[in-house]
């Protein structure tokens, strides 16, 4: 009896471990399909109000590994020259008039609207989250992931992943207690060249901003090697010189 129970426990433990590894491996694959580890890209952020009025922002962004992301607003004129930098858990905003970087938090929004700084300066899911549970639902997997530490913007995520393309389809951002903060919809898969095939549009809405919607459009994603010094406070006002 004891031997049978031991065998059962070992098999159950191995199955559980294999399941978790699968989920984390899938999350890593999703990360790599979304973005190369070191890149440059352009993004357009559109905030859409219930009556259809829009406000648009264009950003140039660079990233190196899972610690370093930098960006600069190219338009509109009121935001041109604003810089953003992420170094690990540290985030700064550079406003040309203020003339020096100030520390910001991941929950703040540099653009207003539904996207916050963590959405804009996003790094790999796998760097910040661990898979707790994985489900299958038709053509998709659902990954239930939990933050590895308290420094992230959202405590939990539910990620719907397309089984074939290994790309996210939908993502729910939740609080620790499971309250929905926002939902991201990944749309219009596009070939950016150099093996990068990924959704080119992310739409988001939030029960906290009823009727409002924000959209992020990606363009010109290219792998690029960058020096570490690009991701420093002194370089923040000069990020556009990399273009």
């Amino acid at each position, binding site marked *: 009896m004891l031997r049978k129970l031991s065998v059962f426990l070992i098999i159950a433990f191995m199955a559980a471990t294999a399941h978790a590894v699968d989920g984390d491996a899938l999350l890593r694959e999703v990360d790599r399909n979304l973005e190369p580890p070191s890149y440059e890209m*352009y993004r357009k952020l559109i905030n859409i109000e219930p009556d259809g009025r829009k406000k648009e922002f*264009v950003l140039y962004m660079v990233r190196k590994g899972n610690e370093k992301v930098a960006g600069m607003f190219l338009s509109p*004129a*009121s935001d041109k020259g604003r810089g953003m930098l992420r*170094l690990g858990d540290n985030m700064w905003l550079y406003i040309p008039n203020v003339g*020096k970087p100030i520390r910001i938090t991941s*929950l703040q929004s540099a653009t207003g609207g539904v996207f916050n700084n963590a959405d804009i300066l996003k790094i790999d899911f796998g760097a910040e989250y661990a898979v707790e549970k994985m489900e299958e639902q038709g053509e998709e997997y659902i990954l239930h992931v939990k933050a590895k530490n308290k420094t992230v913007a959202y405590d939990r995520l539910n990620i719907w992943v397309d089984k074939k393309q290994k790309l996210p389809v939908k993502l729910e951002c939740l609080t620790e207690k499971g309250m929905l903060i926002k939902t991201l919809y990944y749309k219009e898969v596009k070939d950016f060249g150099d093996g990068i095939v990924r959704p080119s549009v992310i739409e988001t809405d939030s029960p906290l901003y009823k009727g409002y919607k924000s959209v992020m459009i990606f363009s010109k994603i290219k792998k690029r090697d960058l020096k570490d010094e690009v991701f420093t406070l002194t370089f923040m006002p000069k990020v556009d010189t990399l273009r």
Partner: protein
Amino acid sequence: MIRRGFFMGVLFCLAVVPGLVTPGAAEDYSFDVSETETKPYSLGGYAEFRPVLIDQDRGAAFYKLKFYNRAKTWTTDEYNSKLQLEGSYQRGISKLYLRANADLNNTYQGWDNDLQIYEGYLSVKPSQSTDIIAGKKVMRWGKGYAWNPAAFVDRPKNPDDPELALEGYTVLTADYTKSFDGRLKTASLTPVLLPVYRNLNDTFGSLNHLDLAAKAYFLFYDTDIDLLYRAKGSKPGAYGADFSRNISTNFEVHGEAAFIAGNSQTITDKNGNTAKKVFDAKSWLLGLRYQTEKDATYIAEYYHNGGGFAAGTMTDYFSFVDTAYASYIGTGNAALMQKAVNLGNSGYGAVNPMHNYVYLRVTQQEPFNILYFTPALTTIVNADDRSFSLSPEIMWTRITNFELRFKAMFLAGPAGTEFGEKAGNDRYELRCRYYF
């Protein structure tokens, strides 16, 4: 009549808004390649119109200093307009940058115009680690939001509006930055040469000096740390340090300390007898920035201004102003009033001239889900005499490139206190800004 003029200014400002509103459009998301094109040059800036209505305090010392030889008035209005142009031209590793500011104001003093080059420099970047800059530049040292005691090579900023662009000084400077793996992530060195001669930085300090200053920056254990230094020259020698760190994702703390050796101060007694005081000034600031789950941001700072005036010294100055004003009214002789004005310009009239201050600003981002609408409440308390200012404001940025801010300021304090002796009791300001 004055109020009618102010409200006409406000109406003019608001009348511009509808013309800038773009109608809603269908859901078509496009990202035109032309929006990401790189150009060697850029040109932009903003135009601003800012009508102001001030309710004057006719018994206040600074009212007397401003209006002693003018017609008395309970209210004054101002119509300020500004054009700020920013341009750059990049070629290879070199970049030319210019920020020019033109003001045209109609105040109680009549029409006034001013054109200044705020910044204008050549930047050469031989590598991504190095940047050599020659020209007029704002350095913006220090981590404080409202005050920067360690900004050794900058003009003082206005704590009532700390994010306003400042005019720089003509310098030769460089940034050398190195990144590392480990606890020390970044180290950066910024030496500054600042010549002070006739017609070149001549408002910085005493003439005929080539001043040297330097800043060393470290990102160490996720903490921004600056060490700051200014050699003795046009101004006394100074040492400083600052830091900034996130305790959690929504809670930041910062601090700043400065030691100025041989700081000089001209003080007066209640009869106008002046004396020069030389002492080592130790200033410091501690602050925090906290964001709640409901998107309210609190910025709080405590500032000890070691170079400031003691409460008794300030009271003596206000008494002297009263004496000088009584003398002017009685005899018509403005000599004492002029002396009081000069003393005001030499330090007593600074924005926050005393020793200890508390700053608190609460900003609520987009309350009631109203996008681009940001109300804020700011208070500056003089901890020595308990007088204070209270400034509610609302900012509206819904229309692309258009920014509308309404700000009121109420000053409170009995006679003989800093805010009680400012010229105005309260002021109302509308700022309409269009970026292009």
